[in-house]
């Protein structure tokens, strides 16, 4: 698909945000968004893993699976490759970049086989992006994830103090808040003509 990289970026970052528009990757979205600090770490980890994962699965799909007519194997092989890769990177970081490891440490294994990551690797294939757009899409999706999870963590920190009736406390009110934020993001529809 021939589409300008800028459009791809805005589409993945805001217009078709992975959390609020596609509703993929809800487990970290609700699980880790209780504090701004943890959601920031998670966001960084997602950007990092997402870029890595799309970069490694792109050649595997186009140079192995397509020529061999084995497109149906993409789920299994992608999970295998992404999981091993993240494991490897984690070891590498632990050895060489201790600071970065301390910052991302616990989030890396959490996000490894998350549906947001796997979903992105599938989406770039379904949209038939070339390599540049693939990288832009992964970056935009990761940034979008981080933006939304931090926004949402800020909301949830305030929700903690709000007088909410007992039956709505915790996840129920979080889901309601998420859908309202999602509605707000509908306002970005067709921003700069970016849609996929």
């Amino acid at each position, binding site marked *: 698909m021939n589409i300008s990289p800028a459009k791809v970026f805005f589409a993945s970052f805001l217009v078709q945000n992975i959390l609020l528009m596609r509703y993929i990757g809800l487990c970290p979205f609700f699980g880790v968004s209780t504090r701004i600090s943890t959601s920031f770490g998670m966001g960084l980890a997602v950007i990092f893993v997402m870029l890595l994962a799309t970069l490694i699965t792109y050649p595997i799909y186009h140079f192995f699976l397509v020529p061999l007519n*084995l497109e149906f194997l993409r789920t*299994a*092989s992608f999970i*295998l*490759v992404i999981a091993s890769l993240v494991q*490897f990177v984690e*070891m590498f970081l*632990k*050895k060489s970049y201790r600071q970065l490891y301390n910052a991302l440490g616990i989030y890396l294994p959490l996000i490894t086989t998350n549906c947001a990551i796997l979903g992105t690797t599938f989406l770039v294939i379904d949209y038939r992006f070339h390599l540049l757009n693939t990288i832009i899409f992964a970056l935009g999706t990761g940034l979008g994830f981080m933006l939304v999870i931090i926004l949402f963590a800020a909301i949830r920190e305030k929700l903690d*103090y709000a007088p909410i009736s007992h039956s709505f406390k915790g996840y129920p009110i979080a889901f309601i808040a998420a859908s309202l934020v999602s509605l707000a993001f509908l306002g970005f529809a067709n921003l700069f003509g970016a849609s996929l």
Partner: protein
Amino acid sequence: MIIISILLLGVLGILMATILTIAHKKLAVSVDEKVSLLTKVLPNANCGACGYAGCENYAEAIVKGEAEPNRCTVGGKEVAEKIGEILGIKVEAKEKMVAVLTCQGGIEECKERFFYDGHLDCKEANIIHQGMKACPFGCLGLGTCVNVCPFDAIKIDKKKRLPVIDENKCTGCGICVKECPKGVLKLIPKTKLVYLACISPDKGKEVREICKVGCFACGICVKVCPYDALKMEKNLPVMDFEKCTDCGICYQKCPTKSYVDKVKKRPYALIDTTCNGCGECVKVCQFKAIEGKPGERHKVIIEKCVGCGECFRVCPVKAITMVGALGYTKKEV
């Protein structure tokens, strides 16, 4: 088709496994053995009471010699001893502390000056005219301490609107003490059972007007304390925990009940018929709770007896028993 797919996935799997195995060997980080051992011993609550970000960081600091090994208040004596074993040195444990609320002014005792309808957070309420409580030093009870406690040890009593600390869960990390904008939370030794629950340095009259349970510095407790453990400073009795024996006389005599006595039931002495009237117990009793003529069976005035057990210890004929001493089992924490 099937064979190719099996082959492809198999090869991929083997490839990844090989890479990971090699990486595991090559990139293995040599963690100091002592650090990992210490991390296992530490409580791993990562509360930060020791001043380090987490238990692992603290363990590293111990091994490097930057931190003393007895900083962990959560683990207390046991952990300190284990750390000593690992390092091969003797470690003296810090006394176990527990957080207490030094304010008893619930909404019944200490009225609210205005209705606060803002964020349910003490720090934010405190900005507005020092909070809605009539007493500017009183607990606001909005639960900032509840939110910051990493051990889930604090709850709000809804009737009184005051936090209640679960002593079994409290580890004495002191986070709530730091976060409380009013400074009404305090760390005291876990073995101490009696403490003053008021921090208002205001003069007697002012305190009396706004709070039913506030200390108005009458000084009765200072006079009545047989162990000299109390001293009047800035309109408040200050307790010397070294001297205090938890007898609870200050709690009993306090006209406003500003003290808190954690002993649920105190024992009292009972003198049986074997008493020969030697009078040793009368001499030793600080509370004048024993009377009787020399040579005759003595009697304990139960209302005055605080159950300190001094007479029990000195009686030469073992005529004294302590009755209803259940409260004292709590002391062996």
